[in-house]
């Protein structure tokens, strides 16, 4: 600690931000691969998995099927882990799934106040806002204000159920099926299911919002 700063600045050193985290990560990757601790192919597989294979389209397919198929919906509500694995989505950060049903009287919203737990198998890597201090701090205390920021205005009669992911249970919100989609195929329905609607910060798109009929 510098004498210049006197006696109440011992935390100064902690405020040091490495000038370029990209370089730090690059240096670590180089060290780990050269030491034989990490296989470069493993890294590429992991990156490719979440860039191209695992993302909100998975969850959208789950939700669309639950809209189209009442038996599947019931299975999803009873045993989400199995019902989701049935569509091929399982593994890391989706080991223990619970599906939350939005209705006319209940709106579910998911947060992780302590870190950023998120259902990777169905939604992929969480977006920046989900990991932000603001979302983690506020969603649990003032969910309605946060929802308004996201453009979701709920009637006072609706109960907001806020789920803080404090264990390894991962939550998938099943948004309400939009009106005007009777008879749509699962593939068409899936185009209405946004990532935010499966976290609870959004609603499913209406056919008008999606901009094209099936």
């Amino acid at each position, binding site marked *: 600690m510098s004498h210049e700063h006197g006696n109440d600045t011992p*935390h100064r050193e*902690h*405020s040091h*931000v*490495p000038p370029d*985290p*990209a370089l*730090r*990560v*690059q240096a*670590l*990757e180089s*060290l*780990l691969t*050269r030491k*034989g*601790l*990490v*296989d470069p*192919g*493993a*890294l*590429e*597989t*992991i*990156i490719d*998995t*979440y860039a191209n294979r695992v993302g909100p389209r998975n969850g959208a397919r789950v939700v669309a099927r639950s809209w189209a198929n009442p038996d599947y919906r019931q299975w999803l509500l009873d045993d989400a882990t199995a019902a989701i694995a049935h569509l091929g989505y399982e*593994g*890391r*950060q989706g*080991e223990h799934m*619970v599906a939350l049903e939005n209705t006319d009287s209940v709106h579910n919203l998911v947060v992780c*106040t*302590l*870190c950023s737990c998120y259902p990777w*198998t169905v939604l992929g*890597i969480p*977006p*920046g*806002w989900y990991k*932000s*201090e*603001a979302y983690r*701090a*506020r969603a*649990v*205390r003032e969910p*309605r204000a946060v929802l308004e920021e996201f453009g979701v205005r709920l009637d*006072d009669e*609706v*109960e*907001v*159920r*806020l789920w*803080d*992911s*404090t*264990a*390894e249970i991962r939550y998938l919100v099943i948004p309400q099926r939009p009106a005007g989609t009777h008879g749509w195929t699962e593939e068409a329905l899936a185009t209405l299911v946004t990532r935010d609607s499966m976290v609870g910060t959004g609603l499913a798109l209406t056919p008008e919002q999606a901009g094209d009929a099936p």
Partner: protein
Amino acid sequence: MNGAHDLGGMHGFGPVPDKDDAHPHPEWYDRAMALTVATAAWGRWNIDASRRAREAMHPAKYLTLTYYERWIDALERLMVETDLLTEEELRSGEPADGSFTPPVDAEGARSALRRGGPTERKVDTPPRFRVGDRIRTINRHPAGHTRLPRYARGQGGIVLRHHGAHVFPDTNAHFQGEQPGHLYTVQFPARALWGPDAAAKDTVMLDLWEAYLHAD
């Protein structure tokens, strides 16, 4: 620990940023994530230890670092703690020894991602609580890792669901064993947690281990 990571209920962070999520993210985010996932295959730590390492920072540092900087910072410390790296290697960037064999290749990584790390365990003890039971959370402030956030301590709620027994983070994070305990989803009235400014109808659910609860 009552660290800066325990953010529930805090003020002062402003609006939720970038809700349209329109910015392309820099490539190093992906690489930080992939390094974290790939090194986990060594099996020398667990997800609770990872979280513990990310929390174990001076609060000013936690709030100043970006998300994946915390991951990398914690990863480096975990690898030193578990003897996969030395401080000197981190400083120099040069491996002192290149004779290791990665635990997973591309195919192994794919399998590991699909396998995941289930945390449910069989235990002999029956659950102390049933769905519908009224419970109260403990009010403790441990120096170590815990998953009972400050805002939910000493609060009364109702058991909504029983999830079987799961690995207990408070011990597992410190390599003191999995000590699985029954896990419940507990429902709290929002007003009990936050006062009359919360909506009367609203509720807050947390997944809580039996060790965090007593009968109310």
